[in-house]
């Protein structure tokens, strides 16, 4: 299926989902209390920062291999939370970067974090380390960095490819506590086997809401839940219809695939 442009059904679906998310954000901003269940991996982040502080060794936060895109910006959001904690407790945070543009973004984000904690002079821009844009050169550099700097905690957030296991095993080697999360679902098994806490699936996108408890983000999270329920309902309806209609005759499949003007 070549989806170059949306059809009317896609447009309606998107409007419904987007409206749901925006509406829940608005209700949350108006002060409605929202419940979010405990997510163990995310609760571990603060604890992991604490351990590095106790040991007096630096932390390392990798934001993955992406450039300025959605998964990497989400990793950045988590990174600024950890950076603020690091600034508060007077800890070092090393950020290896694989994209030139993200060097600027990370520089900005960490400086802002130290500023918000009232310690702009303690910010170390040299801890934003551009390593390489090449996948495995980046992995080699980060492995060296993790082992040589004797980091106490590593955070692996962002989009990772095959190098995920290399990075996580370097942390194992240096005895760091590791928290990892990625939207690259096929890499999750490798984080599970070598990290102490793994954030699975869209827990990744729940991270900033969970950590900051900002009403806007919590509202968005509830909106995401409702949107997922809508998708789930569509699949259920489609499957029920599939009892009676052969594959392409299924009305829901036709709605999903019919091209505009064709």
């Amino acid at each position, binding site marked *: 299926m070549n989806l170059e442009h949306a059809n009317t059904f896609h447009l309606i679906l998107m409007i419904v989902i987007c409206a749901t998310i925006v509406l829940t954000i608005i209700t949350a901003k108006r002060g409605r209390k929202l419940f979010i269940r405990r997510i163990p991996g995310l609760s571990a982040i603060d604890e992991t920062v604490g351990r590095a502080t106790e040991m007096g060794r630096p932390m390392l936060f990798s934001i993955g291999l992406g450039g300025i895109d959605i998964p990497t910006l989400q990793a950045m959001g988590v990174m600024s939370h950890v950076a603020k904690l690091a600034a508060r407790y007077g800890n070092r945070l090393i950020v290896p970067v694989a994209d030139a*543009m993200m060097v600027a973004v990370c520089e*900005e984000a960490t400086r802002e974090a130290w500023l918000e904690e009232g310690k702009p002079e303690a910010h170390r821009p040299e801890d934003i380390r551009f390593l390489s844009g090449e996948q495995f050169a980046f992995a080699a*550099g980060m492995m060296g960095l993790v082992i040589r700097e004797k980091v106490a905690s590593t955070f692996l957030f962002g989009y990772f490819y095959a190098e995920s296991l290399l990075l996580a095993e370097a942390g194992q080697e240096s005895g760091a506590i590791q928290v990892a999360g990625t939207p690259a679902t096929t890499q999750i098994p490798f984080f599970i086997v070598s990290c102490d806490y793994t954030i699975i699936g869209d827990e990744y996108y729940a991270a900033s809401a969970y950590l900051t408890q900002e009403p806007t983000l919590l509202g968005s999270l509830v909106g995401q839940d409702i949107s997922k329920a809508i998708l789930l309902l569509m*699949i259920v309806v489609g499957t029920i219809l599939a009892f009676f209609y052969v594959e392409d005759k299924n009305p829901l499949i036709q709605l999903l695939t019919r091209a505009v003007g064709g």
Partner: protein
Amino acid sequence: MNHPDAWIIWIGAICTLAVYSILYRENPVFRFFEHVYIGLAAGYGIFTTVTQVLVPQWGIPLFKEGKWYWIFAMLIGLMFYFVYSKRQVWIARWAMALFIGTGAGLGIVGFVTEFVPQMKASIKPIWHAPWNLNSFSFNNLLLFFTLITVMSYFFFSIEHKRPVLKGSAKTGRWLLMIAFGAIFGNTVMARVSLFIDRMQFLLFEWLKFHQPY
């Protein structure tokens, strides 16, 4: 590389052994080659950016074809460098905003282009006419069941205490673990293949052992 020169093989073998030395522990040789590697990769990055992006996509349209408006691409790119200025940092933020905005737009579009086909693929007939044993698909039922239970695990705004959701989410987590285990097992072959490649290079191309096959 069918008949590579002898020194290319030697360079390759030394690099290979230097990287494998990290398996014992982090050591000066690995450290040296790690720096060389990052240097080569950085140089290669500059080389490809110049030869594949800046010259053909920017220099030629601007200077050869006289499309003067391409100068703005450079001006926007240079805005990023203001990140090093404390007072004028907003200039870098402005350029970033453009990229964050397009990233967001592409994210919204990407949802439809990626997940509409996935939704379509998720709708499979479990049982259909003529309603006999042959037209019943246990595998499709299982596909459906896995999808529902795993998705139910990822609802964050409801406490997983209600009996139905609790059972479903727990089943979903178990199925998810099976999925992850299977992915791990399925990846071993691809990774071992890469190691066999390197081993064949070291044994037969560098040390010139006799190939038994």
